[in-house]
Protein backbone atom coordinates (compact mmCIF):
# COMPACT_ATOMS: atom_id res chain seq x y z
CA UNK A 1 0.00 0.00 0.00
CA UNK A 2 1.46 3.34 -1.03
CA UNK A 3 1.58 6.17 1.52
CA UNK A 4 -0.37 9.36 1.17
CA UNK A 5 2.79 11.21 0.20
CA UNK A 6 3.57 8.65 -2.51
CA UNK A 7 0.10 8.93 -3.97
CA UNK A 8 0.22 12.69 -3.91
CA UNK A 9 3.53 12.53 -5.70
CA UNK A 10 2.04 10.38 -8.45
CA UNK A 11 -0.81 12.82 -9.00
CA UNK A 12 1.59 15.71 -9.16
CA UNK A 13 3.59 13.81 -11.78
CA UNK A 14 0.43 13.11 -13.79
CA UNK A 15 -0.60 16.72 -13.79
CA UNK A 16 2.93 17.76 -14.72
CA UNK A 17 2.15 16.45 -18.20
CA UNK A 18 -0.48 19.12 -18.78
CA UNK A 19 0.38 22.58 -19.98
CA UNK A 20 -3.00 24.21 -19.85
CA UNK A 21 -5.86 24.53 -17.47
CA UNK A 22 -8.09 23.10 -20.18
CA UNK A 23 -6.15 19.84 -20.14
CA UNK A 24 -6.26 19.62 -16.38
CA UNK A 25 -9.98 20.35 -16.41
CA UNK A 26 -10.57 17.56 -18.95
CA UNK A 27 -8.51 15.12 -16.95
CA UNK A 28 -10.47 15.88 -13.78
CA UNK A 29 -13.72 15.45 -15.71
CA UNK A 30 -12.48 12.04 -16.90
CA UNK A 31 -11.66 11.06 -13.35
CA UNK A 32 -15.14 12.18 -12.33
CA UNK A 33 -16.76 10.15 -15.08
CA UNK A 34 -14.82 7.06 -13.98
CA UNK A 35 -15.53 7.40 -10.25
CA UNK A 36 -17.59 4.38 -9.16
CA UNK A 37 -21.10 5.53 -8.24
CA UNK A 38 -22.22 5.64 -4.64
CA UNK A 39 -25.19 3.44 -3.91
CA UNK A 40 -28.38 5.48 -4.23
CA UNK A 41 -29.50 4.83 -0.68
CA UNK A 42 -26.60 6.97 0.56
CA UNK A 43 -27.80 10.04 -1.37
CA UNK A 44 -29.46 11.37 1.74
CA UNK A 45 -29.04 14.26 4.13
CA UNK A 46 -27.05 12.17 6.58
CA UNK A 47 -24.31 11.73 3.98
CA UNK A 48 -24.52 15.15 2.39
CA UNK A 49 -21.63 17.53 2.89
CA UNK A 50 -22.57 21.05 3.88
CA UNK A 51 -20.76 24.04 2.44
CA UNK A 52 -20.45 22.78 -1.12
CA UNK A 53 -22.14 24.64 -3.94
CA UNK A 54 -22.91 21.30 -5.61
CA UNK A 55 -24.52 18.40 -3.82
CA UNK A 56 -21.89 16.03 -2.49
CA UNK A 57 -22.51 12.79 -0.63
CA UNK A 58 -19.74 10.99 1.20
CA UNK A 59 -19.67 7.63 2.92
CA UNK A 60 -16.86 5.68 4.49
CA UNK A 61 -16.11 2.44 6.26
CA UNK A 62 -13.22 0.79 7.99
CA UNK A 63 -11.63 -2.55 7.30
CA UNK A 64 -8.56 -3.89 9.08
CA UNK A 65 -7.62 -0.52 10.48
CA UNK A 66 -7.87 1.15 7.11
CA UNK A 67 -10.46 3.75 6.09
CA UNK A 68 -12.25 3.59 2.73
CA UNK A 69 -14.25 6.40 1.09
CA UNK A 70 -17.02 6.40 -1.49
CA UNK A 71 -18.64 9.57 -2.77
CA UNK A 72 -20.86 11.12 -5.40
CA UNK A 73 -21.94 14.49 -6.70
CA UNK A 74 -24.27 16.03 -9.25
CA UNK A 75 -21.21 17.76 -10.72
CA UNK A 76 -18.78 15.68 -12.74
CA UNK A 77 -15.96 18.08 -11.94
CA UNK A 78 -16.60 17.74 -8.22
CA UNK A 79 -16.64 13.97 -8.69
CA UNK A 80 -13.22 14.35 -10.29
CA UNK A 81 -12.00 16.27 -7.28
CA UNK A 82 -13.44 13.60 -5.03
CA UNK A 83 -11.69 10.96 -7.13
CA UNK A 84 -8.38 12.67 -6.44
CA UNK A 85 -9.08 12.75 -2.73
CA UNK A 86 -10.32 9.17 -2.66
CA UNK A 87 -7.27 8.10 -4.60
CA UNK A 88 -4.99 9.70 -2.03
CA UNK A 89 -6.87 8.94 1.18
CA UNK A 90 -8.86 5.74 0.68
CA UNK A 91 -7.23 2.68 2.23
CA UNK A 92 -4.99 4.72 4.51
CA UNK A 93 -4.77 4.53 8.27
CA UNK A 94 -7.23 6.89 10.02
CA UNK A 95 -4.41 8.66 11.86
CA UNK A 96 -2.62 9.38 8.60
CA UNK A 97 -5.79 10.74 7.00
CA UNK A 98 -6.46 12.95 9.99
CA UNK A 99 -3.02 14.51 9.78
CA UNK A 100 -2.60 14.63 6.00
CA UNK A 101 -1.58 18.04 4.65
CA UNK A 102 -2.55 17.35 1.04
CA UNK A 103 -0.09 19.71 -0.58
CA UNK A 104 -0.86 18.20 -3.98
CA UNK A 105 -3.95 20.39 -4.34
CA UNK A 106 -1.80 23.47 -4.55
CA UNK A 107 0.97 21.70 -6.41
CA UNK A 108 -1.24 20.69 -9.33
CA UNK A 109 -2.60 24.22 -9.55
CA UNK A 110 -6.14 23.27 -8.70
CA UNK A 111 -6.78 25.97 -6.19
CA UNK A 112 -5.81 28.84 -8.48
CA UNK A 113 -8.25 27.75 -11.09
CA UNK A 114 -11.40 26.82 -9.31
CA UNK A 115 -13.81 29.42 -8.12
CA UNK A 116 -13.69 30.32 -4.48
CA UNK A 117 -17.05 28.71 -3.81
CA UNK A 118 -15.65 25.51 -5.24
CA UNK A 119 -12.51 25.80 -3.18
CA UNK A 120 -14.71 26.07 -0.12
CA UNK A 121 -16.51 22.95 -1.28
CA UNK A 122 -13.18 21.16 -1.56
CA UNK A 123 -12.25 22.33 1.91
CA UNK A 124 -15.58 21.01 3.22
CA UNK A 125 -14.95 17.62 1.62
CA UNK A 126 -11.51 17.36 3.15
CA UNK A 127 -12.81 18.49 6.51
CA UNK A 128 -15.51 15.81 6.41
CA UNK A 129 -13.07 13.09 5.41
CA UNK A 130 -10.78 14.03 8.27
CA UNK A 131 -13.68 14.16 10.70
CA UNK A 132 -14.56 10.58 9.80
CA UNK A 133 -10.92 9.56 10.19
CA UNK A 134 -10.73 11.13 13.62
CA UNK A 135 -13.95 9.37 14.60
CA UNK A 136 -12.47 6.04 13.51
CA UNK A 137 -9.27 6.74 15.34
CA UNK A 138 -11.12 7.05 18.62
CA UNK A 139 -14.13 4.76 18.23
CA UNK A 140 -13.53 2.49 15.28
CA UNK A 141 -17.18 2.96 14.27
CA UNK A 142 -18.61 3.24 10.71
CA UNK A 143 -20.53 6.12 9.08
Amino acid at each position, binding site marked *: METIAEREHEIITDFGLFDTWEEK*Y*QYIIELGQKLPPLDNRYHDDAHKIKGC*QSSVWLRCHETDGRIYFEADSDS*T*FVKGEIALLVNVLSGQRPADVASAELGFIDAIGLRQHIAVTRANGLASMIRQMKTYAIAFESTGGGA
Partner: protein
Amino acid sequence: MTMQAATRAFDVSAARKDFPILDRKVHGKPLVYLDNAATSQKPRSVIDALTKFYTEYNANIHRGVHFLSQQASEAYDAVRGKVQRFIHAGTEREVVFTRGTTESVNLVASSFLKPRLSAGDVVLVSAMEHHSNIVPWQMACEACQASVQVIPMDDTGTLDLEAYRNLLTPAVKLVAVVHTSNSLGTVNPVTEMTALAHEQGIPVLVDGAQAVAHGPVDVQEMGCDFFAFSSHKMLGPTGTGVLWAREDLLESMPPYQGGGDMIASVSFEKTTYNEIPFRFEAGTQNVADVIAFGAAIDYWNGLDRAAAAAHEKNLLAHATSSLESMNGIRLIGRASAKAAVVSFVAGGINALDLGMYLDTQGIALRTGHHCTEPVMDFYGIPGTLRVSYLFYNTNEETDLMIRALDRGISLLSG
Protein backbone atom coordinates in the same frame (compact mmCIF):
# COMPACT_ATOMS: atom_id res chain seq x y z
CA MET B 1 -34.92 60.59 -32.11
CA THR B 2 -35.57 59.85 -35.77
CA MET B 3 -35.73 56.39 -37.29
CA GLN B 4 -32.62 57.33 -39.21
CA ALA B 5 -30.60 57.86 -36.04
CA ALA B 6 -31.93 54.72 -34.44
CA THR B 7 -30.84 52.53 -37.31
CA ARG B 8 -27.35 53.95 -37.77
CA ALA B 9 -25.02 51.03 -37.12
CA PHE B 10 -23.32 50.99 -33.73
CA ASP B 11 -19.54 51.17 -33.97
CA VAL B 12 -18.74 48.33 -31.63
CA SER B 13 -15.03 48.12 -32.39
CA ALA B 14 -14.65 51.78 -31.50
CA ALA B 15 -16.54 51.18 -28.27
CA ARG B 16 -14.39 48.16 -27.39
CA LYS B 17 -11.26 50.30 -27.58
CA ASP B 18 -12.52 52.31 -24.64
CA PHE B 19 -12.46 49.24 -22.37
CA PRO B 20 -8.88 48.18 -21.61
CA ILE B 21 -9.85 44.86 -20.03
CA LEU B 22 -11.43 43.58 -23.24
CA ASP B 23 -7.93 43.15 -24.65
CA ARG B 24 -6.83 40.71 -22.02
CA LYS B 25 -6.39 36.97 -22.36
CA VAL B 26 -7.71 34.34 -19.99
CA HIS B 27 -6.11 30.90 -19.94
CA GLY B 28 -4.24 31.98 -23.06
CA LYS B 29 -7.47 32.76 -24.94
CA PRO B 30 -8.96 36.19 -25.65
CA LEU B 31 -11.43 37.13 -22.95
CA VAL B 32 -15.08 36.83 -23.99
CA TYR B 33 -16.93 38.68 -21.27
CA LEU B 34 -20.59 37.75 -21.17
CA ASP B 35 -21.26 38.39 -17.49
CA ASN B 36 -22.41 41.98 -17.73
CA ALA B 37 -25.51 41.52 -15.63
CA ALA B 38 -23.19 40.66 -12.73
CA THR B 39 -21.04 43.71 -13.35
CA SER B 40 -20.04 45.80 -16.32
CA GLN B 41 -16.50 46.51 -17.41
CA LYS B 42 -15.19 50.07 -17.11
CA PRO B 43 -14.12 52.50 -19.80
CA ARG B 44 -10.71 54.12 -19.51
CA SER B 45 -12.29 57.46 -18.66
CA VAL B 46 -13.77 56.02 -15.48
CA ILE B 47 -10.49 54.47 -14.40
CA ASP B 48 -8.68 57.71 -15.22
CA ALA B 49 -11.16 59.69 -13.12
CA LEU B 50 -10.13 57.62 -10.09
CA THR B 51 -6.44 58.11 -10.77
CA LYS B 52 -6.91 61.82 -11.34
CA PHE B 53 -8.83 62.21 -8.10
CA TYR B 54 -6.23 60.45 -6.00
CA THR B 55 -3.22 62.04 -7.65
CA GLU B 56 -4.60 65.58 -7.94
CA TYR B 57 -7.39 66.52 -5.57
CA ASN B 58 -8.11 63.86 -3.00
CA ALA B 59 -9.64 65.47 0.09
CA ASN B 60 -12.53 65.09 2.45
CA ILE B 61 -15.51 67.10 1.28
CA HIS B 62 -18.13 69.61 2.45
CA ARG B 63 -16.38 70.91 5.50
CA GLY B 64 -13.02 71.94 4.19
CA VAL B 65 -12.02 75.51 3.48
CA HIS B 66 -8.96 74.54 1.47
CA PHE B 67 -8.65 74.23 -2.27
CA LEU B 68 -8.45 70.44 -2.58
CA SER B 69 -11.51 69.98 -0.41
CA GLN B 70 -13.29 72.59 -2.45
CA GLN B 71 -12.36 70.94 -5.72
CA ALA B 72 -13.36 67.51 -4.43
CA SER B 73 -16.64 68.85 -3.03
CA GLU B 74 -17.54 70.48 -6.31
CA ALA B 75 -16.73 67.37 -8.31
CA TYR B 76 -18.75 65.21 -5.93
CA ASP B 77 -21.73 67.54 -5.84
CA ALA B 78 -21.73 67.88 -9.62
CA VAL B 79 -22.41 64.16 -9.98
CA ARG B 80 -25.75 64.60 -8.26
CA GLY B 81 -26.82 66.81 -11.13
CA LYS B 82 -25.49 64.31 -13.64
CA VAL B 83 -27.54 61.56 -12.04
CA GLN B 84 -30.59 63.79 -11.93
CA ARG B 85 -30.38 64.46 -15.65
CA PHE B 86 -29.49 60.85 -16.46
CA ILE B 87 -32.71 59.53 -14.91
CA HIS B 88 -34.71 62.71 -15.56
CA ALA B 89 -35.43 63.39 -11.91
CA GLY B 90 -37.17 66.63 -10.98
CA THR B 91 -34.43 67.91 -8.69
CA GLU B 92 -30.99 67.02 -7.38
CA ARG B 93 -32.42 66.92 -3.89
CA GLU B 94 -34.05 63.63 -4.79
CA VAL B 95 -30.75 61.89 -5.49
CA VAL B 96 -29.18 60.01 -2.56
CA PHE B 97 -25.83 58.31 -3.01
CA THR B 98 -25.76 54.86 -1.45
CA ARG B 99 -23.45 51.85 -1.72
CA GLY B 100 -25.64 50.40 -4.46
CA THR B 101 -29.06 48.96 -5.27
CA THR B 102 -29.05 46.71 -2.22
CA GLU B 103 -28.43 49.54 0.18
CA SER B 104 -30.97 51.75 -1.59
CA VAL B 105 -33.65 49.12 -1.05
CA ASN B 106 -32.62 48.66 2.58
CA LEU B 107 -32.79 52.40 3.13
CA VAL B 108 -36.38 52.50 1.87
CA ALA B 109 -37.28 49.40 3.89
CA SER B 110 -35.91 50.96 7.04
CA SER B 111 -36.72 54.68 6.74
CA PHE B 112 -39.86 54.63 4.60
CA LEU B 113 -41.60 51.31 4.99
CA LYS B 114 -40.99 50.30 8.57
CA PRO B 115 -42.54 53.36 10.21
CA ARG B 116 -45.64 52.86 8.04
CA LEU B 117 -46.02 49.11 8.54
CA SER B 118 -48.51 47.44 10.88
CA ALA B 119 -49.41 43.83 11.54
CA GLY B 120 -51.27 42.34 8.59
CA ASP B 121 -49.83 44.75 6.06
CA VAL B 122 -48.34 43.53 2.81
CA VAL B 123 -45.37 44.33 0.60
CA LEU B 124 -45.98 43.17 -2.94
CA VAL B 125 -42.99 41.96 -4.96
CA SER B 126 -42.82 40.03 -8.21
CA ALA B 127 -41.90 36.39 -8.68
CA MET B 128 -38.68 37.36 -10.45
CA GLU B 129 -37.07 39.62 -7.87
CA HIS B 130 -33.40 39.63 -7.02
CA HIS B 131 -32.68 38.70 -3.40
CA SER B 132 -31.85 42.35 -2.77
CA ASN B 133 -35.44 43.24 -3.54
CA ILE B 134 -36.86 40.45 -1.37
CA VAL B 135 -34.83 40.06 1.80
CA PRO B 136 -34.98 43.70 3.00
CA TRP B 137 -38.79 43.54 2.79
CA GLN B 138 -38.86 40.19 4.55
CA MET B 139 -36.72 41.62 7.34
CA ALA B 140 -38.95 44.68 7.72
CA CYS B 141 -42.13 42.60 7.56
CA GLU B 142 -40.88 40.10 10.09
CA ALA B 143 -40.30 42.89 12.58
CA CYS B 144 -43.90 44.09 12.12
CA GLN B 145 -45.88 40.90 11.52
CA ALA B 146 -46.53 42.01 7.98
CA SER B 147 -45.93 39.78 4.97
CA VAL B 148 -44.40 39.71 1.51
CA GLN B 149 -46.78 38.65 -1.24
CA VAL B 150 -45.86 37.70 -4.76
CA ILE B 151 -47.07 38.82 -8.17
CA PRO B 152 -47.04 35.55 -10.14
CA MET B 153 -45.50 35.04 -13.58
CA ASP B 154 -46.17 32.59 -16.38
CA ASP B 155 -43.77 30.09 -17.88
CA THR B 156 -42.29 32.62 -20.31
CA GLY B 157 -41.25 34.80 -17.35
CA THR B 158 -43.98 37.39 -17.92
CA LEU B 159 -45.81 38.86 -14.94
CA ASP B 160 -49.53 38.21 -14.65
CA LEU B 161 -51.00 41.71 -14.62
CA GLU B 162 -54.52 40.47 -13.97
CA ALA B 163 -53.33 38.75 -10.83
CA TYR B 164 -51.36 41.88 -9.94
CA ARG B 165 -54.52 43.99 -10.14
CA ASN B 166 -56.26 41.67 -7.73
CA LEU B 167 -53.36 41.69 -5.32
CA LEU B 168 -53.52 45.48 -4.97
CA THR B 169 -55.60 45.42 -1.81
CA PRO B 170 -55.70 48.09 0.89
CA ALA B 171 -53.30 45.97 2.95
CA VAL B 172 -50.53 46.63 0.45
CA LYS B 173 -48.19 49.35 1.70
CA LEU B 174 -45.62 49.16 -1.09
CA VAL B 175 -45.07 47.53 -4.45
CA ALA B 176 -41.42 46.65 -5.16
CA VAL B 177 -40.76 45.41 -8.64
CA VAL B 178 -37.74 44.87 -10.83
CA HIS B 179 -37.58 46.86 -14.04
CA THR B 180 -35.39 44.39 -15.95
CA SER B 181 -34.88 40.91 -14.55
CA ASN B 182 -31.26 39.86 -14.18
CA SER B 183 -31.96 36.14 -14.53
CA LEU B 184 -34.74 36.11 -17.15
CA GLY B 185 -34.15 39.33 -19.04
CA THR B 186 -37.84 40.24 -18.79
CA VAL B 187 -38.56 43.95 -19.03
CA ASN B 188 -41.58 44.60 -16.84
CA PRO B 189 -44.26 47.19 -17.67
CA VAL B 190 -43.31 49.33 -14.68
CA THR B 191 -45.08 52.44 -15.93
CA GLU B 192 -48.37 50.62 -16.20
CA MET B 193 -47.79 48.77 -12.95
CA THR B 194 -47.03 52.02 -11.15
CA ALA B 195 -50.19 53.62 -12.49
CA LEU B 196 -52.26 50.69 -11.25
CA ALA B 197 -50.70 50.86 -7.80
CA HIS B 198 -51.15 54.61 -7.63
CA GLU B 199 -54.86 54.23 -8.39
CA GLN B 200 -55.01 52.49 -5.02
CA GLY B 201 -52.70 55.04 -3.41
CA ILE B 202 -49.86 52.53 -3.09
CA PRO B 203 -46.28 53.73 -3.54
CA VAL B 204 -43.94 51.87 -5.88
CA LEU B 205 -40.23 51.10 -5.75
CA VAL B 206 -38.58 50.09 -9.01
CA ASP B 207 -35.35 48.08 -8.90
CA GLY B 208 -33.48 49.58 -11.83
CA ALA B 209 -30.17 47.72 -11.30
CA GLN B 210 -30.28 46.13 -14.75
CA ALA B 211 -32.42 48.68 -16.56
CA VAL B 212 -30.00 51.61 -16.45
CA ALA B 213 -27.44 49.92 -18.69
CA HIS B 214 -29.90 48.95 -21.40
CA GLY B 215 -31.74 52.12 -22.29
CA PRO B 216 -32.76 55.59 -21.16
CA VAL B 217 -34.60 55.89 -17.87
CA ASP B 218 -37.10 58.63 -17.07
CA VAL B 219 -38.35 58.32 -13.52
CA GLN B 220 -40.91 61.06 -13.97
CA GLU B 221 -42.41 59.40 -17.01
CA MET B 222 -42.32 56.05 -15.21
CA GLY B 223 -44.15 57.73 -12.36
CA CYS B 224 -42.68 55.56 -9.61
CA ASP B 225 -41.81 56.77 -6.13
CA PHE B 226 -38.41 55.14 -5.61
CA PHE B 227 -35.82 54.00 -8.11
CA ALA B 228 -32.69 52.12 -7.08
CA PHE B 229 -29.57 51.30 -9.08
CA SER B 230 -25.84 50.55 -8.83
CA SER B 231 -22.89 52.29 -10.42
CA HIS B 232 -20.93 49.11 -11.06
CA LYS B 233 -23.52 47.69 -13.44
CA MET B 234 -23.46 50.79 -15.63
CA LEU B 235 -19.74 51.29 -16.32
CA GLY B 236 -18.99 52.97 -12.99
CA PRO B 237 -16.92 51.74 -10.05
CA THR B 238 -18.02 49.38 -7.30
CA GLY B 239 -19.06 50.86 -3.99
CA THR B 240 -21.64 53.41 -4.99
CA GLY B 241 -25.14 53.68 -6.37
CA VAL B 242 -28.28 55.70 -6.09
CA LEU B 243 -31.59 55.87 -4.39
CA TRP B 244 -33.86 58.25 -6.20
CA ALA B 245 -36.98 59.11 -4.23
CA ARG B 246 -39.77 61.59 -4.75
CA GLU B 247 -38.95 64.76 -2.87
CA ASP B 248 -42.00 64.76 -0.60
CA LEU B 249 -41.45 61.15 0.42
CA LEU B 250 -37.76 61.73 1.07
CA GLU B 251 -38.61 64.80 3.14
CA SER B 252 -40.94 62.65 5.24
CA MET B 253 -38.33 60.01 6.00
CA PRO B 254 -36.20 59.85 9.16
CA PRO B 255 -32.45 59.40 8.67
CA TYR B 256 -31.10 55.93 8.01
CA GLN B 257 -27.63 56.04 9.52
CA GLY B 258 -26.27 58.66 11.93
CA GLY B 259 -22.90 60.35 11.77
CA GLY B 260 -20.91 63.16 10.23
CA ASP B 261 -22.37 65.37 7.47
CA MET B 262 -25.96 64.16 7.95
CA ILE B 263 -26.52 66.49 10.87
CA ALA B 264 -27.41 70.16 11.19
CA SER B 265 -26.11 70.32 14.75
CA VAL B 266 -25.17 67.87 17.45
CA SER B 267 -25.23 68.16 21.20
CA PHE B 268 -25.73 65.56 23.84
CA GLU B 269 -29.12 67.12 24.59
CA LYS B 270 -30.45 67.62 21.10
CA THR B 271 -29.33 66.70 17.61
CA THR B 272 -30.98 68.07 14.49
CA TYR B 273 -30.58 66.60 11.05
CA ASN B 274 -29.44 68.08 7.78
CA GLU B 275 -31.80 68.57 4.85
CA ILE B 276 -32.35 66.04 2.08
CA PRO B 277 -30.48 64.40 0.44
CA PHE B 278 -27.55 64.93 2.86
CA ARG B 279 -29.56 63.58 5.77
CA PHE B 280 -29.20 60.14 4.18
CA GLU B 281 -25.46 60.29 3.54
CA ALA B 282 -23.84 59.78 6.93
CA GLY B 283 -20.09 59.76 7.35
CA THR B 284 -17.36 60.34 4.85
CA GLN B 285 -18.85 59.82 1.43
CA ASN B 286 -17.39 57.48 -1.16
CA VAL B 287 -15.99 60.57 -2.83
CA ALA B 288 -13.68 58.98 -5.40
CA ASP B 289 -16.19 56.44 -6.64
CA VAL B 290 -19.03 58.93 -6.90
CA ILE B 291 -16.80 61.17 -8.99
CA ALA B 292 -15.80 58.24 -11.22
CA PHE B 293 -19.47 57.29 -11.44
CA GLY B 294 -19.95 60.78 -12.88
CA ALA B 295 -17.38 59.90 -15.54
CA ALA B 296 -19.44 56.80 -16.35
CA ILE B 297 -22.53 58.94 -16.86
CA ASP B 298 -20.50 61.22 -19.11
CA TYR B 299 -19.57 58.14 -21.11
CA TRP B 300 -23.23 57.17 -21.55
CA ASN B 301 -24.02 60.70 -22.62
CA GLY B 302 -21.34 60.48 -25.29
CA LEU B 303 -22.71 57.20 -26.60
CA ASP B 304 -25.27 56.86 -29.37
CA ARG B 305 -27.69 55.08 -27.08
CA ALA B 306 -30.28 54.38 -29.76
CA ALA B 307 -27.67 52.65 -31.90
CA ALA B 308 -26.32 50.81 -28.85
CA ALA B 309 -29.81 49.57 -28.02
CA ALA B 310 -30.34 48.39 -31.60
CA HIS B 311 -26.99 46.59 -31.43
CA GLU B 312 -27.99 44.87 -28.18
CA LYS B 313 -31.27 43.81 -29.74
CA ASN B 314 -29.29 42.23 -32.51
CA LEU B 315 -27.00 40.48 -30.01
CA LEU B 316 -30.04 39.11 -28.21
CA ALA B 317 -31.67 37.86 -31.40
CA HIS B 318 -28.49 36.15 -32.55
CA ALA B 319 -27.84 34.51 -29.18
CA THR B 320 -31.44 33.36 -28.91
CA SER B 321 -31.59 31.80 -32.36
CA SER B 322 -28.14 30.21 -31.99
CA LEU B 323 -29.06 28.60 -28.69
CA GLU B 324 -32.47 27.54 -29.96
CA SER B 325 -30.87 25.64 -32.81
CA MET B 326 -28.77 23.55 -30.42
CA ASN B 327 -29.89 20.15 -29.22
CA GLY B 328 -30.86 19.84 -25.58
CA ILE B 329 -30.74 23.54 -24.79
CA ARG B 330 -33.74 24.95 -23.02
CA LEU B 331 -34.11 28.71 -22.75
CA ILE B 332 -35.36 29.98 -19.41
CA GLY B 333 -37.23 33.27 -19.81
CA ARG B 334 -38.98 33.95 -23.10
CA ALA B 335 -40.89 37.11 -22.42
CA SER B 336 -41.68 39.21 -25.48
CA ALA B 337 -40.11 42.30 -23.87
CA LYS B 338 -36.57 41.23 -23.07
CA ALA B 339 -33.19 42.80 -22.47
CA ALA B 340 -30.01 41.21 -23.82
CA VAL B 341 -29.86 38.51 -21.15
CA VAL B 342 -30.27 34.81 -22.00
CA SER B 343 -30.57 32.09 -19.38
CA PHE B 344 -30.56 28.44 -20.35
CA VAL B 345 -30.05 24.89 -19.15
CA ALA B 346 -28.31 22.17 -21.13
CA GLY B 347 -30.22 18.95 -20.66
CA GLY B 348 -28.98 17.01 -17.67
CA ILE B 349 -25.58 18.62 -17.69
CA ASN B 350 -24.47 20.34 -14.54
CA ALA B 351 -24.37 24.10 -15.13
CA LEU B 352 -21.25 24.62 -13.07
CA ASP B 353 -19.35 21.92 -14.97
CA LEU B 354 -20.30 23.56 -18.24
CA GLY B 355 -19.50 27.02 -16.95
CA MET B 356 -16.07 25.79 -15.93
CA TYR B 357 -15.48 24.33 -19.35
CA LEU B 358 -16.41 27.65 -20.98
CA ASP B 359 -13.99 29.31 -18.59
CA THR B 360 -11.16 27.14 -19.88
CA GLN B 361 -11.95 28.71 -23.26
CA GLY B 362 -11.71 32.25 -21.91
CA ILE B 363 -15.48 32.67 -21.91
CA ALA B 364 -16.94 34.34 -18.84
CA LEU B 365 -20.58 33.72 -18.15
CA ARG B 366 -22.46 33.04 -14.98
CA THR B 367 -23.95 29.82 -13.62
CA GLY B 368 -26.23 29.36 -10.67
CA HIS B 369 -29.32 31.02 -9.28
CA HIS B 370 -28.15 34.58 -10.01
CA CYS B 371 -29.48 35.71 -6.63
CA THR B 372 -32.99 34.85 -7.75
CA GLU B 373 -33.58 31.51 -6.03
CA PRO B 374 -37.38 31.81 -6.23
CA VAL B 375 -37.09 31.96 -10.03
CA MET B 376 -35.11 28.71 -10.04
CA ASP B 377 -37.67 27.12 -7.69
CA PHE B 378 -40.41 28.24 -10.07
CA TYR B 379 -38.78 26.42 -12.98
CA GLY B 380 -37.75 23.51 -10.78
CA ILE B 381 -34.07 23.82 -11.67
CA PRO B 382 -31.03 24.38 -9.47
CA GLY B 383 -29.69 27.11 -11.71
CA THR B 384 -29.00 28.25 -15.24
CA LEU B 385 -26.15 29.32 -17.42
CA ARG B 386 -26.59 32.98 -18.24
CA VAL B 387 -25.05 35.11 -20.94
CA SER B 388 -25.65 38.82 -20.48
CA TYR B 389 -24.58 41.45 -22.96
CA LEU B 390 -23.58 45.05 -23.06
CA PHE B 391 -23.11 47.23 -26.13
CA TYR B 392 -19.42 46.31 -26.39
CA ASN B 393 -20.20 42.64 -27.09
CA THR B 394 -20.28 41.12 -30.56
CA ASN B 395 -22.02 38.30 -32.39
CA GLU B 396 -18.58 36.79 -32.94
CA GLU B 397 -18.29 36.42 -29.19
CA THR B 398 -21.62 34.63 -29.14
CA ASP B 399 -20.39 32.32 -31.88
CA LEU B 400 -17.26 31.49 -29.87
CA MET B 401 -19.45 30.78 -26.88
CA ILE B 402 -21.78 28.55 -28.89
CA ARG B 403 -18.91 26.50 -30.32
CA ALA B 404 -17.37 26.07 -26.90
CA LEU B 405 -20.74 25.12 -25.47
CA ASP B 406 -21.09 22.45 -28.11
CA ARG B 407 -17.68 20.97 -27.26
CA GLY B 408 -18.35 21.23 -23.54
CA ILE B 409 -21.64 19.41 -23.84
CA SER B 410 -20.12 16.50 -25.72
CA LEU B 411 -17.21 16.31 -23.31
CA LEU B 412 -19.52 16.26 -20.31
CA SER B 413 -22.02 13.84 -21.85
CA GLY B 414 -19.22 11.33 -22.49
